[in-house]
């Protein structure tokens, strides 16, 4: 359960709206289901009181929406940022993707978000609603009169289990307490794959990536993918292709996407969250992050504004491409 309440957020938003600090509020609203929360812009108190949502399913990273939404907003826009969102926020500022002056950022603590698939696995289908009390989530389903109770921690999303930071790296104002950067085990899974034989790795990814339906959800949710025109939508780019025509097609899509965000990806995990096929896409991005850390020194995208991403930087004694395999240990 989140420590900060919906009412606290609404009150903050209303006070900022009424004193004229902000013109509108970027927040969450209910989608089709209780657990299907989408970003929305709120313009007044009524809208907020009625539709604003804050619960364990508000995983959406708002930073990305600032690029398009601030263009449509004349005054300042209020945005609520969870710790991991603040990294994307900084990264987008580094890339001049929105005007900092047009944003009023309120940092909010996050206790970890729930993964609906884990809940479904635990409670079955037919979920009507979910409410939280203490460390428990109460799941009301069609098939049972009594709510099924699960511990929040047991249904944490993968990215929250491996949360890298509870520290806000950017905000105008902070609600609640700030946390710390966490020593996470987020690279363990990458290391496990690295330890496989090439055949096993190929089989692993063939299995994962062949499920890709090229819906572009990963790209559309990714806060690093804010290109005005994505190469995959551009007929002149040479890689535009909507349908997965064969086994390499979707590999190429995901390699290119991972490469395009390499050094800029903050590891927010949105790609895996939104993938309808449950492909562990974060494992591609984390591979690049792990490599960058080990080849060129630790680098966390978005930790500060204005840093030079590793791929637009170099040192004269970087390791040679042929040496990367020696670094990774001999797992051929």
């Amino acid at each position: 359960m989140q420590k900060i309440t919906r009412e606290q957020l609404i009150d903050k938003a209303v006070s900022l709206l009424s004193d004229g600090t902000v013109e509108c509020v970027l927040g969450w609203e209910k989608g089709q289901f209780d657990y299907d929360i989408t970003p929305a812009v709120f313009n007044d108190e009524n809208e907020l009181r009625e539709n604003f949502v804050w619960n364990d399913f508000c995983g959406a990273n708002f930073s990305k929406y600032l690029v398009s939404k601030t263009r449509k907003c004349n005054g300042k826009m209020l945005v609520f940022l969870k710790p991991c969102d603040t990294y994307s926020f900084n990264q987008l500022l580094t890339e001049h993707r929105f005007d900092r002056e047009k944003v009023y950022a309120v940092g909010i603590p996050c206790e970890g978000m729930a993964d609906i698939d884990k809940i479904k696995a635990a409670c079955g289908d037919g979920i009507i609603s979910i409410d939280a009390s203490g460390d428990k989530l109460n799941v009301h389903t069609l098939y049972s009169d009594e709510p099924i109770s699960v511990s929040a921690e047991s249904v944490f999303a993968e990215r929250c289990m491996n949360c890298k930071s509870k520290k806000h790296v950017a905000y105008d104002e902070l609600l609640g307490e700030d946390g710390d950067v966490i020593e996470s085990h987020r690279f363990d899974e990458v290391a496990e794959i690295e330890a496989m034989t090439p055949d096993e790795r190929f089989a692993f990814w063939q299995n994962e990536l062949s499920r890709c339906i090229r819906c572009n959800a990963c790209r559309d949710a990714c806060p690093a993918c804010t290109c005005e025109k994505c190469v995959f939508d551009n007929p002149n780019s040479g890689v535009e292709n909507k349908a997965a025509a064969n086994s390499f097609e979707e590999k190429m899509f995901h390699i290119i996407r991972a490469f395009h965000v390499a050094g800029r990806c903050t590891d927010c995990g949105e790609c895996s969250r939104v993938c309808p096929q449950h492909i562990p896409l974060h494992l591609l991005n984390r591979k690049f992050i792990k490599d960058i850390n080990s080849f060129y020194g630790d680098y966390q995208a978005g930790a500060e504004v204005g840093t030079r991403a590793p791929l637009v930087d170099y040192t004269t004694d970087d390791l040679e491409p042929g040496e990367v395999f020696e670094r990774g240990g001999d797992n051929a």
Partner: protein
Amino acid sequence: MQINEYKPLIVAFCCNWCSYAGADLAGNNRLNYPADVKIIRVPCSCRVNPMFVLRAFQRGADGVIICGCHPGDCHYTSGNYFTRRRMALLFSMLDYLGIERERTRVEWVSAAEGAKFAATMNDFTEKVAALGENKRLEDLRCKR
């Protein structure tokens, strides 16, 4: 293509100032290397987009090699340093996906290293040929 005589298809991206000139020098000195190697001239190795490498594989190349000036000697001062980082990460990723690491290579060949160019191509072709056809990467529709 004849079945019993497997010939790998190798795409070599060569920077105009060092490696392409190195390849020319190999020609001037009549140093043999396999005809399987086809060279594409780029102004600098940093012009090689990872997309080109993947495209080559997708269209049926068996190996891709990128040649540039030696680090520190880039005609554009820093181009090959970026190449080095980009390709290190790309190759590591391809390896991570289970694609044979011998299919990709970056080699620094200066304009004076005609012999090195030929030797590199001989060695690379041999290694790629030993792997056999590129089944993991090619796009079957586009294969000859």
